[in-house]
Protein backbone atom coordinates (compact mmCIF):
# COMPACT_ATOMS: atom_id res chain seq x y z
CA UNK A 1 0.00 0.00 0.00
CA UNK A 2 1.57 3.24 -1.14
CA UNK A 3 1.81 5.98 1.36
CA UNK A 4 3.05 9.29 2.63
CA UNK A 5 4.40 9.12 6.16
CA UNK A 6 4.72 12.09 8.47
CA UNK A 7 7.06 11.51 11.36
CA UNK A 8 4.89 12.86 14.17
CA UNK A 9 1.13 12.92 14.72
CA UNK A 10 1.29 15.44 17.56
CA UNK A 11 3.97 17.94 18.54
CA UNK A 12 4.13 20.57 21.25
CA UNK A 13 6.89 23.16 20.92
CA UNK A 14 7.81 26.37 22.67
CA UNK A 15 7.81 29.80 21.06
CA UNK A 16 11.15 30.51 19.42
CA UNK A 17 12.15 26.87 18.96
CA UNK A 18 13.32 25.57 15.58
CA UNK A 19 10.91 22.85 14.48
CA UNK A 20 11.42 20.13 11.88
CA UNK A 21 8.50 18.29 10.31
CA UNK A 22 9.50 15.28 8.25
CA UNK A 23 7.65 13.66 5.37
CA UNK A 24 8.60 10.52 3.45
CA UNK A 25 6.83 8.98 0.44
CA UNK A 26 7.42 5.55 -1.04
CA UNK A 27 5.78 6.10 -4.44
CA UNK A 28 8.76 7.59 -6.30
CA UNK A 29 6.72 10.76 -6.84
CA UNK A 30 8.56 13.79 -8.10
CA UNK A 31 6.19 16.38 -6.65
CA UNK A 32 5.84 17.01 -2.94
CA UNK A 33 3.87 19.64 -1.05
CA UNK A 34 3.40 21.10 2.42
CA UNK A 35 0.03 22.52 3.45
CA UNK A 36 -1.39 23.81 6.67
CA UNK A 37 -5.04 23.36 7.51
CA UNK A 38 -6.94 25.70 9.81
CA UNK A 39 -10.66 25.80 10.63
CA UNK A 40 -12.51 28.15 8.30
CA UNK A 41 -9.43 28.73 6.13
CA UNK A 42 -9.10 25.35 4.46
CA UNK A 43 -5.79 24.05 3.13
CA UNK A 44 -3.15 26.62 2.30
CA UNK A 45 0.00 25.83 0.39
CA UNK A 46 3.27 26.65 2.18
CA UNK A 47 5.96 25.24 -0.13
CA UNK A 48 6.28 22.66 -2.85
CA UNK A 49 9.02 20.86 -4.72
CA UNK A 50 9.21 19.25 -8.17
CA UNK A 51 12.60 17.71 -7.83
CA UNK A 52 15.46 17.08 -5.47
CA UNK A 53 17.06 20.25 -4.17
CA UNK A 54 14.41 22.40 -5.76
CA UNK A 55 11.66 24.33 -3.97
CA UNK A 56 8.99 26.86 -4.74
CA UNK A 57 7.07 29.17 -2.43
CA UNK A 58 3.38 28.62 -2.05
CA UNK A 59 0.79 31.05 -0.80
CA UNK A 60 2.02 31.44 2.80
CA UNK A 61 5.79 30.75 2.98
CA UNK A 62 6.65 33.38 5.60
CA UNK A 63 8.22 31.87 8.68
CA UNK A 64 8.89 28.53 6.98
CA UNK A 65 11.60 26.91 4.92
CA UNK A 66 11.95 23.49 3.32
CA UNK A 67 14.58 20.96 2.40
CA UNK A 68 14.56 18.22 -0.18
CA UNK A 69 17.88 16.40 -0.26
CA UNK A 70 16.41 13.09 -1.45
CA UNK A 71 13.49 12.40 -3.76
CA UNK A 72 11.46 10.59 -1.13
CA UNK A 73 11.91 13.08 1.71
CA UNK A 74 10.57 16.62 2.06
CA UNK A 75 11.11 18.49 5.30
CA UNK A 76 9.33 21.58 6.57
CA UNK A 77 11.26 23.83 8.94
CA UNK A 78 9.84 26.46 11.24
CA UNK A 79 12.83 28.68 11.85
CA UNK A 80 11.47 30.25 15.05
CA UNK A 81 8.10 28.85 16.04
CA UNK A 82 5.34 31.27 16.93
CA UNK A 83 1.88 30.70 18.38
CA UNK A 84 0.23 31.62 15.07
CA UNK A 85 1.91 28.58 13.54
CA UNK A 86 -0.21 26.28 15.68
CA UNK A 87 -2.00 24.23 13.05
CA UNK A 88 -2.46 20.89 11.31
CA UNK A 89 0.36 20.37 8.81
CA UNK A 90 -0.24 18.07 5.86
CA UNK A 91 2.35 16.69 3.48
CA UNK A 92 1.31 15.42 0.06
CA UNK A 93 2.92 13.94 -3.02
CA UNK A 94 1.83 13.38 -6.59
CA UNK A 95 3.12 11.97 -9.84
CA UNK A 96 1.32 14.66 -11.82
CA UNK A 97 -1.60 17.03 -11.68
CA UNK A 98 -4.04 14.59 -13.26
CA UNK A 99 -3.64 12.08 -10.46
CA UNK A 100 -4.46 14.25 -7.48
CA UNK A 101 -2.49 14.15 -4.27
CA UNK A 102 -1.70 11.42 -1.80
CA UNK A 103 -1.70 12.99 1.64
CA UNK A 104 -0.03 11.97 4.85
CA UNK A 105 -2.01 11.69 8.07
CA UNK A 106 -0.91 15.09 9.25
CA UNK A 107 1.02 16.56 12.16
CA UNK A 108 -0.91 18.59 14.67
CA UNK A 109 1.56 21.19 15.96
CA UNK A 110 0.89 23.27 19.02
CA UNK A 111 3.23 26.16 19.80
CA UNK A 112 3.02 27.41 23.38
Amino acid at each position, binding site marked *: DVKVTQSSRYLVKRTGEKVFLECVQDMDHENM*FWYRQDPG*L*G*LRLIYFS*YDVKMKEKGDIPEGYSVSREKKERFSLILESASTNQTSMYLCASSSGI*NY*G*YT*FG*SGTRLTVV
Partner: protein
Amino acid sequence: EDQVTQSPEALRLQEGESSSLNCSYTVSGLRGLFWYRQDPGKGPEFLFTLYSAGEEKEKERLKATLTKKESFLHITAPKPEDSATYLCAVNNYGQNFVFGPGTRLSVLP
Protein backbone atom coordinates in the same frame (compact mmCIF):
# COMPACT_ATOMS: atom_id res chain seq x y z
CA GLU B 1 -7.60 35.27 -8.19
CA ASP B 2 -8.76 31.67 -8.24
CA GLN B 3 -11.39 30.86 -5.62
CA VAL B 4 -13.33 27.85 -4.45
CA THR B 5 -16.38 27.95 -2.19
CA GLN B 6 -18.37 25.04 -0.84
CA SER B 7 -21.88 24.79 0.53
CA PRO B 8 -23.33 23.97 2.88
CA GLU B 9 -20.67 24.30 5.54
CA ALA B 10 -22.20 21.38 7.42
CA LEU B 11 -24.93 18.89 6.55
CA ARG B 12 -26.71 16.36 8.72
CA LEU B 13 -28.59 13.54 7.00
CA GLN B 14 -30.48 10.53 8.17
CA GLU B 15 -29.19 7.22 6.88
CA GLY B 16 -30.71 6.69 3.42
CA GLU B 17 -31.52 10.38 2.88
CA SER B 18 -29.90 11.41 -0.41
CA SER B 19 -28.49 14.90 -0.91
CA SER B 20 -25.90 16.96 -2.78
CA LEU B 21 -22.88 19.03 -1.84
CA ASN B 22 -21.90 22.04 -3.92
CA CYS B 23 -18.51 23.34 -5.00
CA SER B 24 -18.43 26.65 -6.86
CA TYR B 25 -15.24 27.87 -8.45
CA THR B 26 -13.73 30.85 -10.18
CA VAL B 27 -10.59 29.99 -12.06
CA SER B 28 -8.71 31.51 -14.97
CA GLY B 29 -8.60 28.21 -16.80
CA LEU B 30 -9.77 24.91 -15.39
CA ARG B 31 -7.43 22.00 -15.86
CA GLY B 32 -9.21 19.77 -13.39
CA LEU B 33 -11.55 19.71 -10.40
CA PHE B 34 -10.78 17.26 -7.64
CA TRP B 35 -12.88 15.85 -4.79
CA TYR B 36 -11.35 14.54 -1.58
CA ARG B 37 -12.75 12.94 1.54
CA GLN B 38 -11.18 13.75 4.93
CA ASP B 39 -11.86 11.80 8.11
CA PRO B 40 -11.19 13.47 11.48
CA GLY B 41 -7.50 13.53 12.36
CA LYS B 42 -6.44 12.21 8.97
CA GLY B 43 -5.21 13.60 5.70
CA PRO B 44 -7.58 14.00 2.73
CA GLU B 45 -8.16 10.97 0.52
CA PHE B 46 -8.50 11.45 -3.23
CA LEU B 47 -11.91 10.54 -4.71
CA PHE B 48 -12.40 11.94 -8.22
CA THR B 49 -10.99 14.14 -10.94
CA LEU B 50 -13.30 15.92 -13.39
CA TYR B 51 -11.91 17.71 -16.42
CA SER B 52 -14.73 19.14 -18.51
CA ALA B 53 -18.32 20.33 -18.21
CA GLY B 54 -20.79 17.49 -18.45
CA GLU B 55 -18.40 14.90 -17.09
CA GLU B 56 -19.56 12.55 -14.33
CA LYS B 57 -17.67 10.11 -12.11
CA GLU B 58 -19.11 7.54 -9.69
CA LYS B 59 -17.80 5.57 -6.76
CA GLU B 60 -20.15 3.50 -4.63
CA ARG B 61 -22.79 5.91 -3.27
CA LEU B 62 -21.00 9.01 -4.58
CA LYS B 63 -21.39 10.70 -7.94
CA ALA B 64 -19.57 13.86 -8.94
CA THR B 65 -20.70 16.13 -11.76
CA LEU B 66 -19.17 19.23 -13.31
CA THR B 67 -20.51 22.35 -15.01
CA LYS B 68 -18.62 25.43 -16.14
CA LYS B 69 -19.03 27.11 -12.77
CA GLU B 70 -19.64 24.40 -10.20
CA SER B 71 -19.46 20.77 -9.25
CA PHE B 72 -21.86 18.67 -7.27
CA LEU B 73 -21.16 15.64 -5.16
CA HIS B 74 -24.34 13.62 -4.99
CA ILE B 75 -24.66 11.13 -2.16
CA THR B 76 -27.28 8.45 -2.72
CA ALA B 77 -28.71 6.54 0.27
CA PRO B 78 -25.81 7.52 2.54
CA LYS B 79 -24.59 5.35 5.41
CA PRO B 80 -23.00 6.49 8.69
CA GLU B 81 -19.57 5.52 7.32
CA ASP B 82 -19.97 8.26 4.70
CA SER B 83 -19.64 10.84 7.49
CA ALA B 84 -16.55 12.96 6.76
CA THR B 85 -15.51 16.34 5.46
CA TYR B 86 -15.61 16.56 1.68
CA LEU B 87 -13.15 18.93 0.03
CA CYS B 88 -13.01 20.11 -3.54
CA ALA B 89 -10.01 21.66 -5.22
CA VAL B 90 -9.25 23.14 -8.63
CA ASN B 91 -6.12 23.26 -10.71
CA ASN B 92 -5.59 26.07 -13.20
CA TYR B 93 -2.74 24.62 -15.25
CA GLY B 94 -0.28 25.53 -12.54
CA GLN B 95 1.41 22.90 -10.46
CA ASN B 96 -0.77 23.12 -7.39
CA PHE B 97 -4.36 23.40 -6.28
CA VAL B 98 -6.77 25.82 -4.68
CA PHE B 99 -8.87 24.07 -2.05
CA GLY B 100 -12.33 24.94 -0.82
CA PRO B 101 -13.11 25.06 2.93
CA GLY B 102 -15.02 21.78 2.84
CA THR B 103 -18.47 20.47 3.76
CA ARG B 104 -18.74 18.52 6.99
CA LEU B 105 -21.21 15.67 6.43
CA SER B 106 -22.81 13.73 9.28
CA VAL B 107 -25.00 10.72 8.51
CA LEU B 108 -27.07 9.59 11.46
CA PRO B 109 -28.16 5.97 11.85
